[in-house]
């Protein structure tokens, strides 16, 4: 391999972009395509567990309350996609104020989704749908329905928590991503504060107690990125961030019917 540059007088020639767009966007699309296969594999694992386990059908714990909760979560994500596309629109019109406002609105909807999802997880674990790494809180009364699901269909808890946990992680990182695009370095102290609140505000047996360290890790990575490459994010950055956010919404459009609606036990 050549390890030095040979000087020449030939002028540089640039080929037009094969995909008619800028490299950052193509890079994000490639990442999203690979990420869709990760989620696809998890959805297939869930579906396979479901059809190959005799006790699976009819024992899943989603009653009307869970369906209502998941529907509100879906509405939050769909609304966040609308606000995100409005942020992109404001950015191409160089309307900095509205761009920031719409990005913050998107983050707020995303945070609503994560809070509702976290509440659902906490309720499921407290009711007895546990995993070795998600034990039930001490002194909590176990719901026999949930305990039976955890005992007879352990695949449900493991595939459910893996799939929805992976999605929740993506939403959380998406909020961090949008926060950096909207507020740049001002977002780092906010992230650290959020980490402290999440860490100190959750009991030690909760998965969110140690899960909160994701926020700390994200804050460190964002601080390095913002410090190494300080810049004002333009419309292309907002659009690429938007692609990521819409993808998170897109994945939920499959998780919601396959995991929640298909497993509903309406009483």
């Amino acid at each position, binding site marked *: 391999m050549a390890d030095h540059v040979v000087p020449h007088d030939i002028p540089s020639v*640039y080929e037009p*972009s*094969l*995909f*008619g*767009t*800028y*490299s*950052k*966007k*193509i890079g994000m*699309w490639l990442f999203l*395509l690979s990420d*869709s*296969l990760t989620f*696809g*594999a998890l959805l*297939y694992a869930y*579906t*396979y567990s479901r*059809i*190959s*386990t*005799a006790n*699976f*059908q009819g024992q899943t714990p989603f009653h009307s309350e869970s*369906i209502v909760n998941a*529907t509100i979560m*879906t*509405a939050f994500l*769909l*609304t966040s*996609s*609308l606000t*995100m*596309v*409005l942020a*992109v*629109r404001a*950015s*191409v*019109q160089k309307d900095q104020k509205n761009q920031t406002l719409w990005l913050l609105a998107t983050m707020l909807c995303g945070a609503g989704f994560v809070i509702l999802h976290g509440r659902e997880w906490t309720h499921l674990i407290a009711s007895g749908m546990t995993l070795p790494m998600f034990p039930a809180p001490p002194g909590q009364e176990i719901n026999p329905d949930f305990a039976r699901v955890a005992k007879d269909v352990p695949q449900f808890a493991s595939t459910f928590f893996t799939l929805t946990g992976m999605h929740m992680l993506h939403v959380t990182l998406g909020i961090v991503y949008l926060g950096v695009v909207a507020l740049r370095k001002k977002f780092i102290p906010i992230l650290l504060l959020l980490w402290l609140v999440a860490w100190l505000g959750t009991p030690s047996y909760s998965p969110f107690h140690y899960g909160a360290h994701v926020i700390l890790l994200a804050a460190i990575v964002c601080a390095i990125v913002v410090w190494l490459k300080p810049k004002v994010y*333009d*419309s*292309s950055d907002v*659009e690429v961030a*938007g*692609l990521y956010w*819409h*993808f998170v*919404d*897109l994945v939920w*459009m*499959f998780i*919601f*019917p*396959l995991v929640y*609606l*298909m497993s509903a036990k*309406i009483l």
Partner: protein
Amino acid sequence: MDEIQIAIAERVAEEQRHHKKAQFFWVWGALLILTAIEVYLTYQNMAPAKMLTILLGLSFIKAALIIGFFMHLRYEVSLMKWLTMCSVVGCFIIMTLFMLWDAQRVVTLGVH
């Protein structure tokens, strides 16, 4: 970004300046209505196979709306549209084929 990338990004932004705000609200409304239909179907006690088919069909419509309008893929050049969609659909077809044999066996033999 180098100058070429900046010029391309500026051209893309210029194209997007003409997108109507109302169309995004229409898409959002359609997505909410499709979600409401899905939830309504859940309460109809349908046969699982029929329900799965309908729910998956609605999910694909929602996915197409999100990819096409919110992710702006419908405004991209044909090569971008076809290459991205065909590659991901191809991968999912391969995944489905791998799962299908065993799923068929389970369905034929029954799980109960």
